[in-house]
């Protein structure tokens, strides 16, 4: 897979755009020139990761001044890198415990799902906000 794709998307900070960003991810997965795995599963997973990460950014970016969410999707050298930028207070990735099925929590599965699907997940502080970086090697 030698193809290089770079998408830079800025959307209003509203949940009604989750479907749009998910569709963009699915379309990208289906258009990959060389990918030997389950293409429909990859499409669903990219949709899911983008949906969870954008919803998370909306939830954590509660400052009235922030009205947009920026997402970059890069495919390069077999690596898919998704970055979601938020302008909020942030959270600590390490303190998020995996959901306990026996407790039946209603919240807290989003980051767990992202960590299960992607190979590497980092959340770090930037000037004026944070970025959630997610990486997956495609075969």
């Amino acid at each position, binding site marked *: 897979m030698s193809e290089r794709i770079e998408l830079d998307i800025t959307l209003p900070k509203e949940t009604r755009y989750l479907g749009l960003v998910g569709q963009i991810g699915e379309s990208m997965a289906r258009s990959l020139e060389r990918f030997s795995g389950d293409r429909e599963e990859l499409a*669903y997973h990219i949709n899911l990761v983008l949906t969870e990460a954008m*919803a998370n950014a909306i939830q954590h970016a509660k400052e009235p001044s922030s009205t947009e969410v920026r997402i970059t999707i890069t495919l390069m050298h077999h690596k898919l890198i998704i970055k979601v930028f938020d302008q909020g207070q942030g959270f600590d990735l390490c303190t998020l415990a995996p959901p306990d099925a026996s407790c039946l929590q209603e919240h807290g599965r989003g980051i767990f*799902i992202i960590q299960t699907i992607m190979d590497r997940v980092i959340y770090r502080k930037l000037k004026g906000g944070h970025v959630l970086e997610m990486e997956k090697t495609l075969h």
Partner: protein
Amino acid sequence: MNIQINEQGNIVLISVVEERLDAHNSTDLKTRLLSLFEDGKNNMVINLEEVRFVDSSGLGALVSGFKNASARNGSLKLAGLQPQVQSMFELTRLHRVFEIFPTSEDALASFQP
């Protein structure tokens, strides 16, 4: 959110007529379920055959309904999961929590003594 509600005896069949159940519309589903519980409806089947995509918020709304039904000595069962939606329940181990049926007819029949 577009949902259809059909009462069949003391069981309510709720069909979610949306392609996605996500952070945009899951609160709406949760609210509609709560309204049914407040009306004394404690046995439910949620038909998800039209739903192609579910995220953690959608799962959270279903968990909320499940907990409310159980707390009222009722039950909330699921039907018609598409393969990718089923895989979400397996990923989060919620397939061990919910009773899941291939069709809504199967789920409704399971309430019969």
